[in-house]
């Protein structure tokens, strides 16, 4: 793992991966939209609203996946002081927040016609809302200090403490009575949905993952360049200070 902690090596690998990630994103998004909107049947209970699920469910998976990734990067940053881990965690946060937001809004758009309500304060929905607040708290904290290193450390601790929410979200539908239906894809005995609905779901999930890779690389590049800029400017300020003392 330590071999990948070098920013220069990251840039080389990123340049190799980026075009592939862009290609996979475009292809799976196109195929996913085709299958989720046109080439899949309406559900016998949900009718056409099942098409909202092809966005809602993969977005929820991404919300959890990005948070877990952020917590792992944060742990690596705290324990081994990887120069890249902090940057990767920072770059992941807005992507996870975006997907969690999409998951909550699309859930409401599905809940209104199917449950008769936009929102209920039950375990699954509330824990997902807390996930969004954890993302927002992380992003606020990471930029809240004049010294970026202190902000990163505080935000990394928040990310690690908040990771307890991830299994709570996953198992909330089993632990508490909730309006939200239990898992139907990742469960014992295989998925409980038909392959005609599995195809758009998986395609969208892959599209969102590839999109995450694309944005992660872009944001990490911005972070690396930003860090170098800070170092150079700091050195310039110090040099100017020394010149003034000598003069």
């Amino acid at each position, binding site marked *: 793992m330590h071999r990948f902690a070098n920013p220069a090596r990251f840039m080389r690998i990123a340049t190799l991966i980026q075009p592939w990630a862009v290609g996979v994103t475009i292809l799976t998004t196109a195929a996913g939209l085709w299958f989720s909107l046109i080439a899949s049947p309406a559900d016998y209970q949900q009718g*056409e*609203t099942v*098409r*909202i699920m092809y966005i809602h469910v993969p977005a929820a998976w991404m919300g959890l996946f990005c948070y877990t990734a952020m917590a792992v990067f944060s742990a690596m940053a705290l324990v081994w002081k990887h120069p890249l881990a902090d940057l990767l965690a920072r770059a992941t946060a807005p992507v996870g927040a975006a997907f969690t937001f*999409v998951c909550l*809004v699309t859930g409401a758009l599905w809940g209104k016609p199917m449950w008769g309500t936009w929102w209920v304060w039950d375990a699954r929905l509330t824990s997902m809302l807390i996930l969004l607040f954890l993302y927002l708290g992380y992003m606020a904290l990471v930029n809240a200090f004049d010294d970026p290193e202190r902000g990163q450390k505080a935000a990394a601790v928040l990310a690690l403490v908040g990771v307890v929410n991830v299994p709570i979200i996953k198992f909330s539908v089993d632990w508490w009575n909730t309006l939200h239906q239990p898992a139907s894809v990742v469960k014992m005995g295989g998925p409980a949905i038909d392959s005609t609905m599995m195809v758009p779901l998986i395609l969208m999930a892959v599209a969102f993952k590839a999109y995450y890779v694309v944005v992660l690389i872009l*944001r990490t*590049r911005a972070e690396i*360049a930003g860090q170098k*800029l800070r170092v150079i400017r700091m050195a310039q300020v110090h040099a100017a200070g020394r010149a003034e003392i000598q003069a």
Partner: protein
Amino acid sequence: MSMLESFLAMGGYAGFIWPTYILTAVVLVALLVASLKAARGAEKDLDAIQQTRRARRRNQPES
């Protein structure tokens, strides 16, 4: 009803299904564009500052 009309009507749920897809597209594209701009902006600034530093070093070889 034509094929296109019935497709757009989404079995009466058009008001819930289309906002789902449009909102998702808007959020994801906005984040992508912002990230692209951040990467290009930061790398351009870095290039500029490194070039002026290189130029300054060439002008005064002993420091």
